[in-house]
Every structure is written in structure tokens, then in C-alpha cells.
């Protein structure tokens, strides 16, 4: 069912330069050409009864309830399928129409259970509303005829129930699955009276091709498809517009609430990133917010071998401040630092880096972007001048060629993937660069990549250089663009560089394993297929040459002129809800908000004046440097806001030793995560439902996060940071996060025009937003690059040091899955475990057979760094020589095997290339056994904690 406060226009809003004026029941209304009469009537405030129409779907014309009379035309056309015409005179309510509509409703109701009072849709049911609207008073056919009332429910999905007895076969669910989600998992089985909605081949939702996005549930006008939470809690009573806290798509939602409890999340039709769609995580997986595992009181302990002790907020904050000051006094001001969280709001992130720079007096602040998209920041800043993607998501609708490199949008960014799929089905061509056959390589119905360059992990740069080689040497370059928009000397130098024979496809084939002809075909398609847009993920960045590859992609876009307008660009698919924002806010040790280097005295001066401190002009430690410094004794304490690097960062044993070496580890989080097991202080954080603020998505779009319920532990994350600063003697005072945003805007030229008031008014803003662009900037680099002239930069391919050998003959690469989110701290505590209970190792049949490995067998995966045991799954998505896994479950210990190799420029870890050997085993690895014991001990220490009254 649509959101409780939505107006349904019946058919989608059309965009046209031509406006059409018509009369509806005597009132003039003007709408864009191509609109339906139903839409126009709603726009004029006239409600025409309807059932099969809803404005997220194209008109279908099956229910016949929205019939109207049009002057000068015979009959009673359906207003949903009839487009408006100039001067048309429409009547929506006449005695004849009333008769027809009542007759239709009689037929519907003759085969519908009359259990309205106990139905979960009671109070918010379109069928019930229509019965009311048409004045249904009797059903002349009676209720004894053939019917569907005994069809059993399908309760296989953890989040919604399918009750076919209530189905009116309007096909809205089937159409939503096709048009909105693009999965086509539903169909109408049979015909005539026997028609019924069928997932897959007359099977349950869970057994079908359904991805549980919930678009069908949202489209259903009755209780046929209904959230289980509504079954349990009844109808919500208010809606709060907020932003999803999962991936970087940044879907806008209406959190529908009863009291301070969320009943359901409904994607916001007016959301500029998602236009009313969502995935299984955003819509359904919010149960973690009230999960009993949440820790709701601050806790302390002197050593990680002691039980925890609950304390008051005052005592906890006082202890943290005391320890930080003591350690700084003994070991120097550089001996402590902090991590900002990409899951927290911009305002919270900004405060943590302010705490470090102003109260700690150093620049030891970093963020989890370090381990994901830091190379994006470096590469795009170097070449184009700004550390962000170039386009809005809407831009994909104008792309002729879509290039997906090192990303699996249907898993990681499903809502954007749906839009991408729609564009591909409209005829855009697809190039996939990935060692693994991601879904998009071939997705029913009809999507098939024009080229899948299935390269060896770690050879991205060789490949991108080769694509550039073909463009340059085959005369496909857009010379006019390159010479006018970019530094000409650098361009000439770069051209000579990529033209070298080393980067000819025939040579690069030896390195990447991609046939030369395919490389040439892809390069030609990219350069000549019209607007070409690159979308990429961590398969680009998480390499020893991550930054080089980002530069390489920008070079390729510049040489073909694919920048500075809609339909083109270089676009990172950001993993976390606010990883863009965390970077924008100055979370990196070397730069202040808006990507300005800490060594710039002018910029520092602005902050020094506002903050009333002197800032350290030298960059601080990055996350991996912090671990190294902890092990050598020069880094002793850390404040970690919402990050779990004991699970997420590579070479787990190294991270664990570093955490053990510190004197004061402060973790602010929702759960006792892997890192918190090494902590001395636990500060209970708040979820996105418990505070106000903003998130910035992958398209630089700033959107509001709004408080739905008070913080369960008493304080929002920004309030905790503020308390620590004040306790350390640095005064911070904000009454509301909007005041923090005002400070950010004062200090950051690219965000100067941003305020909560403007966000509330416009819905969202894409930065830069300032006097030049008061309502924001959807497309970057129009006319000229942010850095002035684009900078072509040479990108020599350097093979990673992580090589296969006789002992480690396979390459392990890692990725994500749709139902789980990153380390899984949230999604593992929701119904999403129904889809993914453990991480598995995908292995090619050839490699499996050589090693005597059967499907579902336990296997040891050993690298130079460590070994773990996983379940093998034989898969043809990968080539022989490559194996693949995910890292959503701590017990998998995927990062026990990843190495500490990293990107040369940013130290982003090389998660995507680890040489391993796989062999059959019977039991868990030593690390996994230790991890199990350690976890059990830490859980016991939590259970034994000394408690205090609230």
C-alpha cells in the first residue's frame, strides 16, 4: 500500500514542453501533454475511482472503474489510458458512471472476503475506499458463487505475507516487479476467472526470482501483499521523511510511525535519488534498531579481560576525557586520535574531526573511506579537481553506453541498478569490466552485456591504459574537447604514454587475460556509442593501484569528451550512506572540510578564527598508520565512532594486535561489535531513526535525516562528541544539528548555501551549493573543470606484489551480496539472514575438481596472512584461477586472509587480490577457533557486567 499521506495521481507525471488545458467537471486544468485524464483530474482535485492504476506504474486499463464521459465522444473511456487533449470536456461523475462503477465493484466484492474489520489493511485499503466512493450497498450476485476465498496464504517471505484470497488481480504487483524493480519475478498464472498472481512458476515468493524489494507490497491496493509489521502493529498514524542509512544511493523514505515505533518504511515518491523505490535492506531491514543486542548504557573496564561495568554518561565521558588527557600528557599530543563514521550524519562527522583538530590538537582523524573510496578522492581530485562523482543518478537515463567497472550494482546499489536496467532495456549498451560475471552481464529479461572484459584481478590499470591506447591510436579521441578543456602539454605527454606498444591490446591480453579483440571492441563502443558513462565500485579502488585506476578512468573520459553534461561522467558507487559526506566534512587527516589541505594557512586561518584554536599544519595518521603506530608505542588511544575495523579492515591479526596495544580504546556503536571486544569504554550510539542531521549520497546529494524516536541510550552521537570535547576543556555548544550545518556552511565554500531550512524547502541539494549555484549542482564540470583545465596523468601499470605461486596458486577476490550490508552488524540482526546465513567461497568447477572439493564442502582458504574455513560453492561466475567470497559474517574471518598491501596513494587496502590455496578440511581454522572462544569470553564479560539503574 502506498504511504499513508501520499496523493496517488493514478498515472505517472509526464514531462513535456507542451501544456494542455482541459475542463474537468467544469474546472479548467492545465497539465503536460501526454498526461492521462486521470492524472489531470487528480491535479484538479477531482478523485476518479480507480483500482488498477497507481502513479508509479504506466496505465493498464483493466479495472474499468476510472471510466469517464467526454463531450463529443461515444462510450465511457478509461481515464487512465486516455491522454488529455486541448479543450477536452470531461465529466467524472454522472448517474450513468455511478451505475457502471457500482456494477464493477459488485463483481469485485462478490469474490472478496468480507473481513474488513479484522483485515490488516483496515483503515488504509483502496478496495474499501472504492466501495465507499461508489456507494456500494449490496452485491446482487451474492457470495456463494465460485470464488478464490480458500486459497492459502504464502508466508515464506520474512517481511510480507501474500494472501491471494484478497487479490483482485489488478496486476499492480506484477507491473511493479517489472516496471519499478525490473526483476519480472511475478506473472499472472492462467486466464479469465482462473487468473492469479504467481511468483515464478506457481511457487512461493522465497523460491521464486523475487529479490524482496517490496515494490509489489507498496503497489498492492488491498491486503493481498502486506507488511508483516502492519499485521502485527496495525496502521501507522504519522509519516516522517528521512534518508536510508544503508548504501550510498541514499533512498528517501517515509518512516511510518505509531507513537515512537516504526511500523514500516515506505520509499518516498518525491525522493530525488530513488523516486519511490527501495531495496530489501532499506524497506524491510530496520529491525536492528530495536534489537535486544543493542547496548543502551555506557560501560567501562580497565582491561579487556575484565567484565564490563555500566556507568552514567557523566562518568563515562569524564573517564574518556581523563584518559585522553593523561595519555597526551605522558606520550605527546599526537598519541591519540579518532575515527569518524560514514554511517553517522555529516554534522556528527564534522564534530568528530573538529574534536580531533581543535580539542586533541592534532590531525589524527580518519574515516572508513580509507578502506573503500579514498582512491576516488585522490584520483578525481588530481585529474578533474574535485573528490566526487560527476553526475546525478538521473543522468543514466541519457547514457548510450554504460560501463560498469568493479561493481555489482544489483547487489550493492540495487535501487540504482533498477534504473540502470531500465536504461539498458531501452537500448543502452553495456560494458562490464569484472573478474566475476556479475548479474548485469546477463539478466533476464533481455539484458546482456555487449562486452564482458573478464580480467585477472589486479590488472585494471593495464586494461584501462589499453582502452585508451585503442582510442588514441585508432583516431577515436575527441581532440577538440581534450585540447580545449585540458592542459595541452599533459595531454600530449599522456597520448605518447598510452600509445606505447606495451599498452596495445595484443600485449595487454597477456597480462589481463582479456582477448585483444574484446578490448578493441569495448574501446570503440565506449568512444563512439554516444554518451558513455562509467560507474565503478570497490573493484576499482581496493587495489595497490586503486588511485591510478581512478585516474585512468578520468583520462579515458576526458579523451573521449565524456564529461560535463548529462549521460556521461565518472561515477563512484559509494558503499555507505554517508561516505561522501564523511569525506566532504574533512574526515581525512590531511584535509579540512571541502577538500582543502591542512597545510593551507589561509584555510586554516578561517577555522582557527571560528574555532578559537591554533591548528596543526601537518597531516595526521591514517587508519593503517594508526595501527602501525600503536604497535610501535607512539599511538595509545582512539575514539571510534561507528566503525568496526576489527572485522572490516584487512589482516585482522595485525589490527587485533594494534587494538590490544592501546591503553584506551573508546567505541561508540550500537552493538558490541568485533572492535568493541577490544574496547575499554563503550559509548552507546544512536541509529538514524533517533536523531536529526543530513547524509550525502554518492551523487553529492545532501538529504535530511529526521528524528523518529528519541535516542534509546539518551544521547545522539553528536551530543556524545560534544560532551567529550567539553570534558576535555574545549568548549562546544550546539542546541541542534542545524547549528552544526550552519558552521559547516560558513567554513566550506562548496557548501556555503546549504542549510536545514533550504533542505526542508527543496527536499535535497547536490553540492556545490553556493552563490553560483544556489540550488545545487547536478552535473559537475560543465563548461570547465573544477580545477580549471583537466589534467591528463600518466598511469603506468605496476603489477601488485601479491602474486600467485606454487603454494598459493589462486587469486581470492571479495564482494558483496544484496541482502547483507558490509560487516553485517545491522543486517545480521534482521530477517535478511533468511537469504544469506554464511559467507561462501565461490570456486570454478575446474579448480574444485583438481582439489577434490565438492559443492557445499568445508574448505580451508589459506593466504600468506592467515587461513580460514568457508563453505565451497561451485560457480561458473568466475574463471579458473579465481575464487570469490563476501565478508558479512565475523566468523568467516575473510580479512584474516587479506594482506596489508595497499593503494600507493591512499593506503586503501588491496582487498581484491589475495593469493590463496584452497583445500578440503573438516574443521574451522585456528583463528576461527580462537575467535569463537574470544567472542564467547567477551559475551560472558558483557553478561556479567555490573549494571546500574536507568
Amino acid at each position, binding site marked *: 500500500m502506498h504511504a499513508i499521506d501520499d496523493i496517488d495521481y493514478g498515472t505517472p507525471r509526464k514531462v513535456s514542453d507542451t501544456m494542455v488545458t482541459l475542463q474537468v467537471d467544469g474546472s479548467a486544468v492545465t497539465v503536460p501533454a501526454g498526461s492521462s485524464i486521470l492524472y489531470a483530474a487528480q491535479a484538479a482535485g477531482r478523485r476518479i475511482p480507480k483500482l488498477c492504476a497507481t502513479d508509479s506504474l504506466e496505465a493498464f486499463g483493466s479495472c474499468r472503474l476510472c471510466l469517464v464521459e467526454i463531450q463529443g465522444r461515444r462510450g465511457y473511456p478509461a481515464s487512465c489510458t486516455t491522454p488529455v487533449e486541448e479543450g477536452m470536456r470531461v465529466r467524472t461523475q454522472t448517474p450513468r458512471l455511478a451505475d457502471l462503477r457500482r456494477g464493477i465493484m459488485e463483481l469485485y466484492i462478490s469474490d472478496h472476503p468480507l473481513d474488513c474489520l479484522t483485515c490488516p489493511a483496515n483503515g488504509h485499503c483502496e478496495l474499501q475506499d472504492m466501495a465507499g466512493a461508489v456507494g456500494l450497498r449490496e452485491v446482487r450476485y451474492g457470495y456463494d458463487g465460485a470464488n478464490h476465498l480458500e486459497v492459502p496464504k504464502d508466508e515464506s517471505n520474512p517481511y510480507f505475507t501474500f494472501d491471494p484470497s484478497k487479490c483482485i488481480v489488478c496486476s499492480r504487483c506484477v507491473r511493479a516487479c517489472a516496471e519499478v524493480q525490473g*526483476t*519480472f*519475478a*511475478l*506473472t*499472472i*498464472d*492462467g*486466464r479469465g476467472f482462473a487468473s492469479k498472481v*504467481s*511468483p*515464478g*512458476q*506457481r511457487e512461493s515468493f522465497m523460491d*521464486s*526470482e523475487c529479490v524482496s524489494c517490496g515494490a509489489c507490497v507498496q503497489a498492492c491496493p488491498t491486503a493481498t501483499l502486506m507488511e508483516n509489521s502492519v499485521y502485527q502493529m496495525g496502521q501507522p498514524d504519522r509519516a516522517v521523511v528521512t534518508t536510508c542509512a544503508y548504501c550510498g544511493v541514499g533512498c528517501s523514505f517515509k518512516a511510518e510511525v505509531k507513537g515512537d515505533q516504526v511500523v514500516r518504511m515506505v520509499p518516498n515518491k518525491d525522493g530525488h535519488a530513488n523516486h519511490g523505490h527501495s531495496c530489501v535492506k532499506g524497506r524491510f531491514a530496520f529491525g536492528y534498531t530495536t534489537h535486544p543486542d543493542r547496548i543502551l548504557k555506557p560501560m567501562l573496564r580497565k582491561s579487556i579481560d575484565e567484565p564490563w561495568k555500566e556507568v552514567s554518561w557523566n562518568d563515562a565521558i569524564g573517564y574518556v576525557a581523563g584518559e585522553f588527557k593523561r595519555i597526551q600528557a605522558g606520550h605527546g599530543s599526537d598519541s591519540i586520535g579518532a575515527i569518524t563514521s560514514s554511517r553517522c550524519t555529516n554534522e556528527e562527522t564534522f564534530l568528530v574531526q573538529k574534536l580531533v583538530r581543535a580539542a586533541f590538537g592534532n590531525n589524527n582523524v580518519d574515516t572508513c573511506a580509507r578502506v573503500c573510496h579514498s582512491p576516488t578522492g585522490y584520483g578525481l581530485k588530481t585529474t578533474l579537481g574535485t573528490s566526487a562523482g560527476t553526475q546525478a543518478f538521473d543522468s543514466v537515463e541519457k547514457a548510450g553506453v554504460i560501463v560498469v567497472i568493479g561493481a555489482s550494482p544489483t547487489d550493492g546499489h540495487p535501487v540504482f541498478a533498477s534504473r540502470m536496467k531500465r536504461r539498458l532495456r531501452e537500448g543502452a549498451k553495456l560494458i562490464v569490466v569484472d573478474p566475476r560475471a556479475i548479474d548485469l552481464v*546477463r*539478466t*533476464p*529479461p*533481455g*539484458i*546482456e552485456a555487449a562486452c564482458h572484459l573478464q580480467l585477472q584481478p589486479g590488472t585494471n590499470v593495464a586494461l584501462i591504459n589499453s582502452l585508451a591506447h585503442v582510442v588514441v591510436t585508432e583516431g577515436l579521441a575527441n581532440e577538440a574537447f581534450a585540447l580545449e578543456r585540458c592542459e595541452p602539454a599533459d595531454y600530449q605527454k599522456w597520448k605518447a604514454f598510452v600509445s606505447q606498444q606495451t599498452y596495445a591490446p595484443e600485449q595487454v591480453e597477456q597480462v589481463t587475460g582479456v582477448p585483444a579483440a574484446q578490448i578493441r571492441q569495448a574501446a570503440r563502443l565506449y568512444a563512439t556509442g554516444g554518451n558513455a558513462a562509467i560507474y565503478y565500485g570497490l573493484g576499482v579502488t581496493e587495489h595497490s593501484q586503486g588511485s591510478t585506476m581512478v585516474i585512468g578512468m578520468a583520462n579515458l573520459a576526458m579523451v573521449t569528451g565524456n564529461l560535463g553534461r548529462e549521460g556521461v561522467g565518472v561515477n563512484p558507487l559509494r558503499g555507505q550512506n554517508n561516505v561522501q559526506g564523511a569525506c566532504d566534512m574533512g574526515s581525512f587527516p590531511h584535509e579540512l572540510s571541502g577538500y582543502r589541505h591542512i597545510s593551507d594557512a589561509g584555510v586554516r586561518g578561517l577555522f582557527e578564527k571560528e574555532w578559537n584554536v591554533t591548528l596543526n599544519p601537518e597531516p595526521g595518521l591514517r587508519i593503517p598508520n594508526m595501527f602501525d603506530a600503536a604497535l610501535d608505542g607512539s599511538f595509545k588511544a582512539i575514539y571510534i565512532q561507528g566503525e568496526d575495523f576489527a572485522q572490516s579492515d584487512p589482516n585482522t591479526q595485525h589490527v587485533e594486535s594494534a587494538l590490544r596495544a592501546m591503553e584506551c580504546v573508546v567505541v561508540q556503536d550500537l552493538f558490541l561489535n568485533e572492535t568493541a571486544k577490544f574496547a575499554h569504554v563503550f559509548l552507546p550510539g544512536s541509529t538514524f531513526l533517533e536523531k536529526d542531521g543530513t547524509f550525502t549520497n554518492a551523487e553529492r546529494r545532501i538529504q535530511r535525516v529526521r528524528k523518529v524516536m528519541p535516542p534509546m541510550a539518551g544521547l545522539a552521537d553528536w551530543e556524545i562528541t560534544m560532551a567529550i570535547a567539553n570534558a576535555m576543556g574545549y568548549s562546544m555548544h550546539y542546541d541542534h544539528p542545524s547549528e552544526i550545518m550552519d558552521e559547516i556552511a560558513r567554513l566550506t565554500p562548496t557548501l556555503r548555501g546549504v542549510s536545514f531550512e533550504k533542505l526542508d524547502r527543496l527536499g535535497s541539494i547536490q553540492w556545490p551549493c553556493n552563490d553560483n549555484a544556489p540550488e545545487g549542482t547536478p552535473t559537475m564540470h560543465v563548461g570547465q573543470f573544477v580545477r580549471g583545465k583537466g589534467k591528463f596523468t600518466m598511469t603506468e601499470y605496476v603489477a601488485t606484489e601479491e602474486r600467485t605461486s606454487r603454494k598459493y596458486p589462486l587469486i581470492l577476490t571479495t564482494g558483496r551480496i544484496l541482502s547483507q550490508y558490509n560487516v553485517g552488524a545491522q543486517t545480521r540482526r534482521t530477517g535478511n539472514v533468511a537469504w544469506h546465513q554464511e559467507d561462501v567461497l565461490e570456486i570454478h568447477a575446474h579448480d574444485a575438481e583438481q582439489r577434490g572439493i565438492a559443492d557445499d564442502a568445508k574448505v580451508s582458504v589459506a593466504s600468506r596472512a592467515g587461513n580460514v574455513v568457508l563453505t565451497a560453492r561451485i560457480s561458473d561466475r568466475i574463471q579458473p584461477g579465481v575464487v570469490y567470497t563476501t565478508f558479512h559474517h565475523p566468523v568467516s574471518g575473510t580479512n584474516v586472509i587479506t594482506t596489508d598491501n595497499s593503494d600507493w596513494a591512499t593506503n586503501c587496502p588491496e582487498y581484491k587480490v589475495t593469493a590463496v590455496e584452497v583445500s578440503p578440511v573438516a574443521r574451522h581454522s585456528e583463528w576461527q577457533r580462537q575467535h569463537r572462544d574470544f567472542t564467547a569470553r567477551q559475551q560472558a564479560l558483557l553478561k556479567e557486567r555490573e549494571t546500574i539503574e536507568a
Partner: protein
Amino acid sequence: MPIESGEAIARIAKALKHKPGALLPILQEIQEQLGHIPSEAVPIVASELNLTRAEVHGVVSFYHDFRSEPPGRHVIRICQAESCQAMGSAVLTAFAKTHLGIDFHETTADAAFSLEPVYCLGNCACSPAMAVGKEVYGRMTPQRFQEVLQEVAGKSE
């Protein structure tokens, strides 16, 4: 489903997939060769044409002529269209169902007969009409129905 059937389905799908609107010809050919379209054929055809299983299933279940179960040795189709209805096909149909002990779209336990409705056999002048296999019979009565059944059963032995 026997392995050979799976192989035959894959072969048919591969051979016909390049025809425009290939789904219907493929389904028709499968039914021609196997006598019906087993549910196991759906994923094979779907994968070959890059369609979802739901889409293929929707088409198979939409057309009455596609059967998901193997038919009986003889398929009896009784006309339900206007002319035949006017001449008593309802009575004939009721008798046929009782006599055979099955409903429409079902097959007798001995796999001898399947019963299907049909909408016009082009034999309106001789309503009510029915067909057994490709043979059409007119002016049907319950009595005639039993005779025809005996006749075809005798022929097939």
C-alpha cells in the same frame, strides 16, 4: 523428467531461439515432441531466451493449448461456444465429466482420456460438437458420447 527430455528441450530452444518471437514456436515444438510442457522445461527455455521463469510460466499457463501435464492417449474437447451451448453442450459436458470421472483439464487415472473445453470447432451447423484428437463429431448426445468413446478406445487397441 527424464534426462533425454531435458536435452531435447535445450536442443529445441537453441534451434529456434533466433526466430522473431521465439517463445511460442519453442513451446509449440516442445509440446509437439514431448506431448506437453513439463515445468522443468520452463527454466531451460527461460535461460536460453534470457527471460525470467515467471515470464515463461505466464505464457505457458495463459494458452489453454499448452499443457503442463502429459495428456491422456485421447484428448476430448467439447465445444462451449454459443451455438453448441444453445443445443445442449452443458448437458453433454456434465455427462462427460461424470462418465469419465474428471473435470476439464484433467486426465483419467488410466491415462486414456483428457477432457478440455474448446470455443468453436467450426461445426456449428451440427451442434453440439466435440473433437477427439483431430476428429470432429457433431450432433452429440450422451448416448453418442459413449459410442464415440468405445469406438476410439477400440481403434487404439
